[in-house]
């Protein structure tokens, strides 16, 4: 039942967005603000995760929205607008990274051994971080810090799949990689983040971040 209700809501949402897109195509530019409003945070989050800089991310998010507006005629109505928009943001962020040559600056060793076995760390004092902890700004900052410390190829897959909630297929398409690669990288990203955060609140993680000092715990 829940699934069918979700599907219905999804269909209604898609219909509503199709209507807005048609109005924009007919020249009612103001409808674009309504269309993008629910996705502003998601576009910014995607840009921030890839660029790791507030100002760059904001500029990238603005540019992506503008490109979406200018290319709205090319949007295929059977596609999902949110996925299309996020993909534009990812492309924009990747282009900027290339311009900044950020890929060269990022430590290469993090991206190596993608296919190798990753051994998760063992924690005797494992404590779960409750989601209520997200109310605290410092917790959100620690999570963002942990995310920005993992390699680019893992970060972009993780952000699209686990933050933007894209499917494995959508993530693969947005990044131009195979679904097998998405699964492998996602596994590594999740394990690395788990290792960075696992000691939990009140544990060594919240007092002294080892990766903040440039020491890799893995």
């Amino acid at each position, binding site marked *: 039942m829940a699934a069918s209700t979700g599907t219905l809501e999804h269909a209604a949402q898609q219909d509503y967005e199709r209507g807005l897109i048609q109005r924009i195509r007919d*020249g*009612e*530019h*103001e*409808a*674009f*603000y*309504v269309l993008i*409003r629910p996705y*502003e*945070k*998601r576009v*910014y*989050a995607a840009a921030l995760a890839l660029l790791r800089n*507030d100002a760059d991310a*904001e500029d990238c*998010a*603005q540019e992506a*929205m*503008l490109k979406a*507006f200018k290319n709205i005629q090319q949007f295929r109505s059977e596609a999902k607008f949110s996925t299309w928009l996020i993909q534009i943001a990812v492309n924009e962020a990747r282009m900027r990274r290339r311009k900044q040559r950020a890929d060269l600056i990022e430590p290469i060793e993090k991206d190596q051994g993608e296919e190798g*076995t*990753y*051994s*998760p760390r*063992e*924690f005797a004092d*494992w404590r*779960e*971080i409750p*989601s209520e902890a*997200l*109310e605290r700004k410092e917790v*959100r900052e620690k*999570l*963002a810090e942990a*995310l920005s410390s993992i390699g680019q190829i893992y970060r972009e897959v*993780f952000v699209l799949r*686990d*933050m933007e*909630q894209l499917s*494995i297929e959508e993530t693969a398409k947005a990044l131009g990689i195979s679904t097998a690669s998405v*699964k492998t990288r*996602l*596994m590594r990203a*999740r*394990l690395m*983040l*788990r*290792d960075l*955060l*696992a000691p939990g609140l009140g544990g060594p993680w919240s007092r002294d971040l080892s990766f903040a000092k440039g020491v890799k715990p893995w």
Partner: protein
Amino acid sequence: MVIDCEHVWREVSNYLDGEVAPELRTAIEDHVRGCKHCTAVLDGMRNVVELYGDERMMEVPVGFSRRLHQRLEADMSPSRRTFLGWAVAATASLLVAGAIELARSSVFRSPDLRSEHSRTSNHVPPDMMVIVAQEGKTFHVAGCPFIHDKAQLRTISAHQAEQEGYAPCVRCMKKYLDATASAAPNRSKEAFGG
């Protein structure tokens, strides 16, 4: 099927995504039940997915939406006024309208009108459902980012909104405002039945 820790680590992510075959799923669950380390790995990964998937992890800087709209407004059609321009113009016209209203209030009593704009807005389809804020002066299309005082909103017909003295929002109702200058008079008559 019996699997070791390494096999679990390779598949634990797929397991969380429901991407493993039933046989492997059972094997993972059997292994995890008896392995403290793998239990911690599975719980930890589940925690990571839940935390990062939370809406609260998606924050935008203060003023993000406003700056985004300014940029869009400036680039959508460069010849048009900027958002700031519109805001200043709208505020100025409201002030002027208010001053006129005050000056004339003793002679021409029109207490129902919330804005001077109301008088020229009758080309909006009267049966169109619009949003009004209790303390606002304008009516909007649902979802218009310029709706203020979001706590006290009502959905009413454009006709009723005009009757109550609300004026169309210069942003979301612009299509109908633009129509005033061109062929609008005829259309507005049709819309209102003459």
